[in-house]
């Protein structure tokens, strides 16, 4: 499996899109850190931008990459290796190189300008989000053979997780404002990896004091080591469920 990952990796590293992505993140991070203010503020702005762009780029890039590697996958399928291996190599190759771009683009400036626990959480969250959205992209790609449809589904997933879901949550909070919603909000958060990632980082910043009762509840649950592990465990689940289901679809499908 390592052999195939190596070649998938090699193919992507030379792709100019990943290079551009790294530079974009690098410029963004350095810019935000140099804009003045405390490093914490920069991390906060970075968080918001990262949670919007990283899922979008991961999901679109991974979907197009999957469709473009179709013939390559066919070439490998004719070799004596299992489909599961091919699929997981593709996945780890794409997710690994995008995470690499993220670590270089955001990690280097964070460590340079504002190395703190929050910064580390931001990095971890970014890597998890990359793996999750590449997994969702692969799920969208194995559902349909049509490239345009696949990219459509991928974009829809991004829209849902980045924008629509928050709208739904806000609507529910507003509509049921008279009821105690703390636990429900917590559960709803677990259903969206982007929100989960946001809260993991936010709770380590001072701004969490502004989040009211729900914020206090979050802090009491997620502020502990146990809570943080739970949150990352949920993120891990968000990787495993889509990637394992798409792997089984891929193994049982005609190429």
């Amino acid at each position, binding site marked *: 499996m390592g052999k195939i990952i190596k070649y998938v990796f*090699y193919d992507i590293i030379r*792709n100019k899109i990943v290079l551009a992505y790294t530079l974009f993140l690098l410029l963004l991070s350095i810019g935000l850190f140099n804009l003045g203010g405390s490093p914490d503020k920069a991390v906060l702005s970075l968080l918001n931008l990262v949670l919007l762009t990283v899922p979008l780029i991961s999901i679109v890039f991974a979907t197009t990459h999957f469709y*473009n*590697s*179709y013939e390559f996958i066919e070439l*490998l399928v*004719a070799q*004596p290796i299992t489909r599961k291996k091919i699929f997981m190599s593709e996945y780890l190759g794409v997710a690994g190189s995008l995470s690499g771009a993220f670590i270089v683009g955001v990690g280097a400036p964070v460590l340079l300008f504002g190395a703190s626990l929050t910064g580390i959480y931001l990095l971890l969250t970014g890597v998890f989000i990359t793996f999750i959205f590449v997994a969702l992209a692969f799920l969208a790609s194995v559902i349909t053979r049509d490239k345009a449809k696949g990219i459509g589904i991928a974009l829809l997933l991004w829209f849902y997780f980045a924008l629509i879901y928050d709208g739904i949550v806000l609507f529910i909070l507003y509509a049921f404002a008279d009821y105690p919603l703390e636990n429900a909000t917590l559960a709803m958060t677990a259903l969206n990896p982007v929100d989960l990632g946001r809260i993991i980082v936010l709770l380590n910043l001072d701004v969490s004091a502004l989040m009211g009762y729900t914020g206090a509840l979050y802090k009491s649950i997620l502020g502990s080591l146990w809570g943080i592990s739970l949150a990352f465990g949920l993120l891990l689940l968000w990787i495993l469920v889509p990637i394992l289901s798409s792997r089984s679809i891929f193994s049982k499908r*005609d*190429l």
Partner: protein
Amino acid sequence: MITIENLRKSYGKLQVLKDINVSFEAGKVISVIGPNGSGKTTMSKCILGMALPDSGDIKINGESILKKHAYRSQIGYMPQIGKYPENMKIRQVIEMIRDIRKDVTTVDEELIGLYRLQEMYDKRMGSLSGGTKQKVSAALAFMFDPKILILDEPTAGLDPISAEILKCKILKEKKRGKLILITSHIMSEIEEVADEVMCLVDGNVKFHDTITDIKAQANEARLSKAIAKIMNGED
């Protein structure tokens, strides 16, 4: 060597293969012909495990190959259109496949030499012409000395000289006791290299005979006329 039993395959509502029963012997070149969309490529994809049959069985040397992968080390496959990762160089593609098949000790580099691929080793796959990609596909298919070769329209994009080299190679490998399946539309070429012709029409085997038998049956000296006669005669 390969036995196909009651093979059925459909894509959605479209039945591509309807109950195929054939067997192919080692040391023969078998040409699979048939109109476009008659199921030729689907059949080879089923043998390769790329398409999964709805029912029926495919056996190589008596063993079912369904849901297995190790048997593919005995097969060399040359696709109709070989597409490769654009950023990889020829060298890397060849090295990668070699890496995957590390257990193979005898490596046949004859085609790499004859096609002068070494001179282009550092070119990116994306910058190659269709014909050159075909050459790479051919070189890869023959490289690991497989017992079975499946060639899907092998000479379609090749220049006459390269096509000739490939035909010589096919005949040479046949003499070494290999089973070679070729799908092709070029009758003169089939006549040159093949021993048997299998014709698929609408997912059924129309006939499967040796070339001499086909010619005798139709009473024609040329294969293309003989086949045309059989196809029209039975309609």
